[in-house]
Each structure stands twice: as C-alpha cells, then as structure tokens.
C-alpha cells in the first residue's frame, strides 16, 4: 500500500512525560549505563547537574507516553508488524533532568515510496520542550513500512 501523500503536514496528538528518577534508572540499567552521574543524585549534583540527567536518546520515550503510541500508524493503515525504524536524528538545545515535565509535539513531514511500492517511508518531525517552554531537543525519525504485496 502506498502512503497517501496528503498525510504530509498532519499533526499527531501531543505526548507528555513527567521524568521520574526511577524511570531513568530503569533506562540506564537497560542500556548498561553505569556512570553514577546518571544513577545517583548526589553524584549528579556534585557534577553540576540539578538532578539525574536525561540521557541523550531517552527523549523518544516522551512520544511513547500515550495510551496507544502507535495509533497514528494504524490510522494510516499500517500494521506494527510491518514497520522498521529507518533513521533517527536528535538536535539538542538544553539538558533535561529528572523532575522535568516534557512535552513532545510531532507532525508527519514527509511520506514517499521506493522499490515500486515495496517500501514506504514516513518521516516525523518532533519537538521536545519543557513545560515552561524551554526547548530541549528536536527529533526526526523515519519509519520504513515493508509492504507484503508491492504494487504492480
């Protein structure tokens, strides 16, 4: 199925995450991060941080903080089993810390097909800001849809 280019520009529902220390420690455990700056508040403060820092790739977690974070794909007729993560980009404006309430806003910025329709690409541009408006990071991700039956 080819993605309808009219989806370009579509805004997705915003997501919000209150960053908790326990959540950051779970993330760090999963990625094997052992630097105490990311795990121990006193060490983080001695290093000049107000609290545990949010690691550089954690921000995608904000976008997953909705009851069904993949519902927008379903709305496009895309099944989760057909998608692969193609590309991911982060541009950083400021550090974020445990205790911050982060908001992600996303829009579909591009959609195109390759290989005669066997693969569709959906590009999303997202901003992550702190609740007080401080810009934290910009994200761009490309999702690849593997179509089981390419258009003939």
């Amino acid at each position: 199925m080819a993605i309808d280019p009219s989806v370009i520009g579509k805004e997705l529902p915003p997501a919000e995450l209150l960053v908790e220390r326990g959540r950051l420690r779970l993330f760090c455990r999963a990625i094997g991060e052992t630097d105490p700056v990311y795990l121990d508040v006193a060490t983080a403060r001695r290093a000049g941080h107000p609290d545990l820092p949010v690691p550089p790739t954690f921000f995608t977690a904000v976008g997953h903080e909705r009851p069904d974070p993949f519902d927008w794909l379903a709305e496009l007729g895309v099944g989760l089993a057909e998608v692969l993560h193609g590309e991911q980009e982060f541009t950083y404006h400021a550090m974020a810390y445990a205790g911050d309430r982060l908001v992600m806003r996303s829009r579909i910025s591009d959609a195109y097909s390759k290989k005669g329709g066997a693969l569709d690409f959906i590009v999303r541009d997202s901003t992550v800001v702190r609740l007080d408006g401080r810009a934290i990071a910009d994200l761009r991700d490309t999702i690849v849809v593997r179509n089981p039956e390419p258009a003939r």
Partner: protein
Amino acid sequence: MSLDVRVGAELPELSPPPISRATLALFAGGSGDHNPVHIDLDAARAAGMADVFAHGMLSMAYLGRLLAGWAGQQRIRSMRVRFAAITPVHAALRCTGQVVAIDDQAGERRARIELRVSLPDGTTTILGDATVAID
C-alpha cells in the same frame, strides 16, 4: 575542560555484553517502546522474523553512552543514525566513533564524529554521525 581531539582520532570503543531477551524487556520498559516484535517471540514470528530482534534505539543509546563517556553529554549537539541492518537477539555489538572533521559552528569549535555499530561478523547495523562541542 578542553578535549584533546584531532581529525582521525578514535573514541574509546564500547562493547556492551551480548543483548539478552531480558535486555530487550528492560529496554521496552525504560524506553516505553513496547512493540511486541522486540519482546514477544510469537509476535516476531507472525511478522515473518525468525526471532525477536533488538530495538534500533537500544543500539543508538549505546552510541549515546559512547559520546557522553568521551566528551560529557552537555557537549553533544546532535546525533543522527541510519539503521542499516537488524540486530538479532544475543548479538555482541561493537560501537565505534572517529573524529572526521573539526570546524566552527554557531560560535564554538565542534568535532564531527562518524559513528558505527557492527556485529561480530562485520555487518554494520548502524551508520551515523554526531557533532560535539570541543572547547
């Protein structure tokens, strides 16, 4: 603090322990990405895969560790990657970085780092780059 960097310098390599199914379960919880193809064998097979496979963002998180461990996270200005191949469960990844350029951007010296994650058989799973402030 000033980083000693020059074009061609390699970052200290990061080689995390092989990715277990437990790693993927923990990462699903930590990252909020509960896509079942990463944690549920039945779902992975239904999607046509032989087994579950690792979240691309797990490998990118290792690259985040590589950069932050080298320069400090506050210095990372951007990171971008292309996921070139699937990372199978049990894979032992090698995460490497090399300084490929140094220039002035937005009023500071920045190094451009080429990033790569690879499997033991040499398959590149991620290619990417990052910009890091160096003074």
